[in-house]
């Protein structure tokens, strides 16, 4: 079955005051119909930039290359004009961001804001729009939706606002919902509710979700598949259970070990990853994780690894991916490109 979204060799460069920055380095991944794909990484790994790049939401100074094939449009999104992209945004690909307070207009009622989306993309007005807006609010689990329509954002709690954002995002039944850290600013007990909403959406209207997050717990909760990013590159790709059970990339393993988890930390302290995420100017001819990796050798420092199946069966970008027993020696058949 054709994937809903196929991203190939997406590269994003920014020119900043301090010089050029390579934010995303030839990232490739697919999102299937109705699937929840998590894009995971720490700050600076390029995941948010990737999400914005999909529909051309990056600021003017960004140089984007690569292919973004979106099946419902039948074309590469990078070829669309701004006008055509505006049609896609909201209708086929919708976004939900981290801070609901700044995403909602404080001087308009909830009803008017949802109405705006409905009017823009579905030409709905008046009574029909109001009814549909109320339907959407119940879809995301907001009680007494009729009342809520007349309220303003400041009258709602953080969790409610995020639900409203999601309602607005799915107003047009988009094929893909891009959620960038949707629960990070919320309390834990509220977070669970939002994740439930996202899960239900998939069941009820078949929306696929591209979930951007740094929180492995959230990933474990709702992701079907996971792509791990580091310094602009995708470094591991696996179905969620496999990623947690048999992480193949040392960075992934390091991330999992860094989260306090009684099952893993019966003895001693948490595993730390020394050093920091680098800011790259150019794509180095090396593994970007080499200077922080405990298993790095000369090969790692001189050749750029490509994504290839690892010992657990899923793609990993590493010269010495980890098997359950420890790192595997350089895999045969893979040489420097």
């Amino acid at each position, binding site marked *: 079955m054709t994937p809903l979204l196929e991203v190939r060799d997406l590269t994003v460069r920014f020119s900043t005051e301090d010089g050029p920055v390579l934010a995303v380095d030839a990232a490739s991944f697919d999102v299937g119909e109705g699937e929840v794909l998590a894009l995971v990484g*720490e*700050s600076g790994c390029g995941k948010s930039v990737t999400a914005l790049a999909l529909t051309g939401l990056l600021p003017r100074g960004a140089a984007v290359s690569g292919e973004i094939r979106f099946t419902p449009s039948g074309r590469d999104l990078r070829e669309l004009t701004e006008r055509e992209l505006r049609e896609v945004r909201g209708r086929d690909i919708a976004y939900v961001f981290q801070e609901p307070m700044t995403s909602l207009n404080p001087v308009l009622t909830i009803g008017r804001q949802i109405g705006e989306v409905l009017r823009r993309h579905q030409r709905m007005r008046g009574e029909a729009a109001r009814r549909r807006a109320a339907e959407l609010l119940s879809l995301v689990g907001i009680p007494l939706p009729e009342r809520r329509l007349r309220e303003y954002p400041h009258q709602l*709690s*953080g*969790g*409610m606002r995020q639900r409203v954002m999601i309602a607005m995002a799915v107003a047009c039944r988009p094929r893909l919902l891009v959620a960038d850290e949707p629960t990070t600013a919320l*309390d*834990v*007990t*509220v*977070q*669970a*509710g939002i994740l*439930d909403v996202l899960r239900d959406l998939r069941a009820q209207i078949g929306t696929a979700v591209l979930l951007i997050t*740094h*929180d*492995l*717990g*959230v*990933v*474990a*909760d709702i992701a079907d598949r996971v792509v791990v990013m580091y310094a602009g590159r995708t470094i591991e790709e696996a179905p*969620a*259970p496999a990623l*947690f*059970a048999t992480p193949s990339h040392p960075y992934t393993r*390091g*991330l*999992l*070990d*860094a*989260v*306090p*988890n*009684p*099952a893993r*930390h019966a003895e001693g*302290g*948490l*595993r*730390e*990853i020394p050093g*920091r*995420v680098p800011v790259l100017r150019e794509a180095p001819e090396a593994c970007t994780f080499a200077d922080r990796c405990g298993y790095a050798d000369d090969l790692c420092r001189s050749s750029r690894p490509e994504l290839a199946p690892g010992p657990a069966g899923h793609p990993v970008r590493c010269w010495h991916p980890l098997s359950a027993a420890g790192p595997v020696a350089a895999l045969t058949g893979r040489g420097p490109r």
Partner: protein
Amino acid sequence: MTPALEVVDLVKHFGPVRAVDGVSLRVGSGEVVGLVGESGSGKSTLGRCVTRLVPVTSGEVRINGRDIARLSRRAVRPLRRDFTIVFQDPASSLNPRMTVAEIVAEPLRLHRIGTPSERRERVLDQLDQVGLRPEVARRYPHELSGGQRQRVSLARALVASPSLLVADEPTSALDVSVQASVLNLISRLQAELGFACLFITHDLAAVEFVAQRVAVMYLGKLVEVAEREQLFRAPLHPYTQALLSAAPIPDPVAQRNRQRIVLSGDIPSPVDPPSGCRFHTRCPVAVPRCSVEVPPLRQVAGSLVACHLADGSPQ
């Protein structure tokens, strides 16, 4: 032995907002107590009250037996040597116009501890203890990463050897891998230096790693206080149970097999808390009594619980 910190019936209102509404808590000498809660719980306010960064509305705050709640700001100042605080945001915790050396030396200067050369020695020692190279002393905060800045904050807090450290969400603004190193550091320092620590956070996993006892707050009141193993294995209060079940675990198998308690509604505003037990509006097992009568914090098995229905058996 006198506890490092003893809070008795602490109340803090900001106008109509009842941020802390009658909290009593003890942190023994050399003990790490985790204080857990979500937004509106009042945990950060409690931390600020304990360190007298805000005046207290009523109640007692005893540091090593001495009540500082009633003292004037001037009288408290010399006592501040003994209790310190570390904040959440590495970006605003350090004065951008001061070098690391100046920042860490400040408590020593303010309390007139040592000669200038002795202070320099001490600062370098302290930086070493928090895992920073001596060259860092000459740098400015903007030259450091978030993790390094938190280490400097810790160095500043510990340089005058306090007996109590209040850590207010010290790792929440950091990346996962950096959180690990800071948590490890706090744990190690506490073991080596033996200070008492009130570790305030919303992150249950961090608390489980670093604390010996755990106190849970909801809307300005304590709902449960227990030894760590007890709290995580068999929590007695419905809120604690919900909190534990909601906390995401990075393990899909465990996650999906978990019994999930979903709370209805969102956290009420602290301006107008619900009557009776504040949790009753979201509690899955509330009975009519809960909306009328405020449950006292009482002994049940080895823990303290504020729930009418808690009787020592897990729900």
